[in-house]
């Protein structure tokens, strides 16, 4: 049997991208000068995991690059090198390059070798400079076990533990489950890596090893008690076993010093046997650096000892393993089954309501109980699909930092409500519109520090992202305390482009509405950030596609606020069911403005626009659903039926129906997947009586009506 590593690729990429996000977040939190060691550890772990994974899968470019990155991080981790702004920038750039490399490898595209090697060169130079300075220090004041790094912080050498550190040892109980080997983990590699931390004592337990004849060669029957002497962070130890998480029992405990190593003075010499020397892939000891000139060529990708497939838990802290990774398809299947159950339950309820007899009451009680349980089940399954919006928000700190730097603005980013949860599908689609809004805020909204100070505002502008639940919806606000929208300029621009007449006067809301028109931009110069006018209309369209809406409020000199309202999920919609003849249709509640009965006097017929009715001083076209869908209605007289005023794409329309039936949550079944696309229909659902109802897509209906009118 050969292990087909390609099956782990998807997991590797997914984990690596997530890990890079975490690395980036940690880098942004890193204080220059006084970094939090835990953050540096986090960053180091990411680089280490990616290096191991990429070496395993043969992505040698990535492995080589991360090797250099890891070496630099190791210097930072050991305190051998201070965290400066330049180093922080270098690391952030490395994150970018790694992302690009991973994406290239993932899509089997060539890697931008020049960019990679430039940055790798920078990394190597930084490391080499630091080593040179250490070499100089060592030459001046030779200190065999301890060396002072350039910033005066003592740094332990790679393989000689500092005096006193022998007082601490780690004892590790490592009991692999049988499937550990088959999952691609190899204790030889793991223990080699552990030995690389500074030394290792190994005690194997073969009690459970069956006779040769009974052994399944794919299974592991061994277990170990390991001891790691010296001042090694627990994190580093756990990290070795990261990828075996879930495939072994692991206990790491701190133990008193072993008698043989109690004497710190000769700790290095009297290391217990069998002691394994530090791994050669570690950064060389300063003494070696003093003798050899620093190598500037990129280090070759060492076959990493951590090279194991299943790059799992790359960042999960110990004890943080209370979650499992489940594919979205599985959840969708579950969701689908629950949807079917809901329908069956509704059918039973209808049947139960009609049943009579001595058992009927008990049946109804049971059905009521079933309904409650069903609702809970449905909500639980829905929650599985929910993810906190922090998944999207997390990309902003970096973006804002970079933008502010490039535009010479000072910007403070405030994130609130990051834990607000919404459906994964919605979450994936809301990212780009939000990015655009935040860019706009920074580019157009926030003024330069001088302008702000002159206006009596603090030099640093604030961009605020807030998410919250409102009813069955989620609302995401992007606001800034910048100059607000310049109505005069918007109007001037709109007039210049012929979007409005020269003498047309517009209210505030209508003026703001102009920025959502395709091709509109007031930016004085087009930057690569914004100003090409391809933004806000796309933002609005994306939000609409998700069944949401976007609103804008602005105050001159005080800033502006965009509010996006989205449904929590795309799997369920709050709908109004309406009757047309014998058919039932569902109109999403979010598109409904109001429902009304028409008076014969309010109805007119306009040439070119068909039937219209008067609605709050405006004339809206009437869409007869029976005509659109070819259904025989109960009535064709407009004053006998009802009109549902619905809004889509910024336009309103009156949908003529026979009757309103009721409001209910319906589970959306894709029409595309089960049948095919139909204009004006966004999906279907199954009603309690088992019949199928189509869910109307109001913007699509309006477009369909336009086509009919034009034809």
């Amino acid at each position, binding site marked *: 049997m050969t292990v087909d590593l390609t099956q782990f690729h998807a997991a590797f990429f997914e984990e690596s991208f997530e890990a890079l996000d975490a690395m980036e977040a940690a880098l942004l939190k890193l204080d220059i000068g006084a970094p939090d060691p835990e953050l540096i550890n986090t960053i180091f772990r990411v680089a280490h995991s990616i290096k191991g994974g990429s070496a395993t899968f043969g992505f040698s470019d990535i492995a080589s690059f991360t090797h250099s990155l890891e070496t630099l991080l190791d210097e930072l981790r050991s305190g051998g090198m201070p965290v400066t702004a330049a180093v922080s920038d270098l690391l952030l750039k490395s994150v970018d390059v790694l992302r690009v490399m991973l994406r290239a490898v993932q899509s089997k595209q060539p890697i931008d070798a020049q960019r990679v090697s430039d940055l790798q060169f920078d990394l190597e130079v930084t490391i080499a400079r630091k080593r040179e300075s250490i070499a100089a220090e060592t030459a001046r004041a030779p200190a065999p076990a301890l060396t002072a790094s350039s910033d005066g912080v003592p740094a332990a050498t790679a393989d000689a533990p500092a005096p006193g550190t022998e007082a601490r040892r780690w004892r590790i109980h490592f009991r692999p489950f049988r499937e550990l080997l088959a999952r691609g983990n190899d204790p030889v590699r793991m223990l080699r890596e552990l*030995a690389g931390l500074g030394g290792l004592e190994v*005690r194997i337990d073969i009690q459970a*090893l069956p006779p040769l004849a009974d052994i399944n060669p*794919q299974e592991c029957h061994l277990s170990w008690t390991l001891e790691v002497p010296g001042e090694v962070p627990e994190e580093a130890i756990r990290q070795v076993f990261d990828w075996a998480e879930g495939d072994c029992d692991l206990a790491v405990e701190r133990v008193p010093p072993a008698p043989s190593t109690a004497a710190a003075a000769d700790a290095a010499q009297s290391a217990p046997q069998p002691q394994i020397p530090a791994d050669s892939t570690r950064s060389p000891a300063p003494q070696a650096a003093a003798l050899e000139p620093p190598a500037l060529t990129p280090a070759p990708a060492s076959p990493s000892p951590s090279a194991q497939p299943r790059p799992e838990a790359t960042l999960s802290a110990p004890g943080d393993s209370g979650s499992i990774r489940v594919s979205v398809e599985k959840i969708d299947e579950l969701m689908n089954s629950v949807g079917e159950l809901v329908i069956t339950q509704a059918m039973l309820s209808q049947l139960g309501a009609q049943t009579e007899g001595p058992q009927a009451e008990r049946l109804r009680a049971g059905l009521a109980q079933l309904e409650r349980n069903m609702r809970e089940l449905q909500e639980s399954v829905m929650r599985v699909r929910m993810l906190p919006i922090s998944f999207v928000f997390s990309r902003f700190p970096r973006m804002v930092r970079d933008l502010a730097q490039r535009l010479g603005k000072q910007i403070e980013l405030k994130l609130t409500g990051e834990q607000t949860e919404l459906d994964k599908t919605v979450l994936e689609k809301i990212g780009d519109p939000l990015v655009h809004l935040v860019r706009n805020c920074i580019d157009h909204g926030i003024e330069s520090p001088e302008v702000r100070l002159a206006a009596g505002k603090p030099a640093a502008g604030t961009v605020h992202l807030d998410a919250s639940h409102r009813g069955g919806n989620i609302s995401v606000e992007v606001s800034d305390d910048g100059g607000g929208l310049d109505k005069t300029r918007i109007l001037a621009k709109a007039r210049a482009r012929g979007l409005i007449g020269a003498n047309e006067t517009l209210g505030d809301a209508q003026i703001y509405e102009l920025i959502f028109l395709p091709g509109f931009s007031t930016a004085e110069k087009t930057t690569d950030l914004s100003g090409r006018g391809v933004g806000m209309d796309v933002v609005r369209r994306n939000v609409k596609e998700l069944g949401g809406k976007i609103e804008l409020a602005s105050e001159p000199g005080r800033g502006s606020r965009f509010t996006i309202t989205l449904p929590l999920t795309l799997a369920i919609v709050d709908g109004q069911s309406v009757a047309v003849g014998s058919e039932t249709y569902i109109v999403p509640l979010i598109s409904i403005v109001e429902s009304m009965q028409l008076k014969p006097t309010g109805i007119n017929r306009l040439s070119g626009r068909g039937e219209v009715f008067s609605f709050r001083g405006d004339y809206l076209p009437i869409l007869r659903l029976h005509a659109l869908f070819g259904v025989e209605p109960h009535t064709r007289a407009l004053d006998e039926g009802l009109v549902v005023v619905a809004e889509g794409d910024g336009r309103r329309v009156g949908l003529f129906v026979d009757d309103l039936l009721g409001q209910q949550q319906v589970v959306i079944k894709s029409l595309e997947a089960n049948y095919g696309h139909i204009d004006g229909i966004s999906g279907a659902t199954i009603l309690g009586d088992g019949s199928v109802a189509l869910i109307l897509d109001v913007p699509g209906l309006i477009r369909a009506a336009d086509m009919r009118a034009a034809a």
Partner: protein
Amino acid sequence: MKSRTRSTPARKAGRGRTARAASPPRARAGKSGELTLNADCTLAQAARLKTSLGGLLAEPQTVTLDAGAVQRIDTAALQLLAAFVRDRRLLGHCTQWRGAQQTLAPAARLLGMEGVLELPGESR
């Protein structure tokens, strides 16, 4: 995997035996059993290794395991070898090593297996 007896050419010269000589493969449980381990002793080949070892388990003569050609070895293979050596010891039979110091012994040492495998000391 070819775990044939003495069939894989040994890579190191000067081992006191011209394993390179084109001698025909000997039966598994030969007069003095010998097994030349393949270059790749990993999980993927473990089932074959188990079969080869199984054929030699009851060999009353001393069995020589030649690890001189081994380039890669992992826990799965070492586990089988450990069971083999132990089981033979329990049966009262001897097992000895040749060419283990290059690749096999360091890996075994990492796992704390030198004792179980009855590997010769560092000097050899």
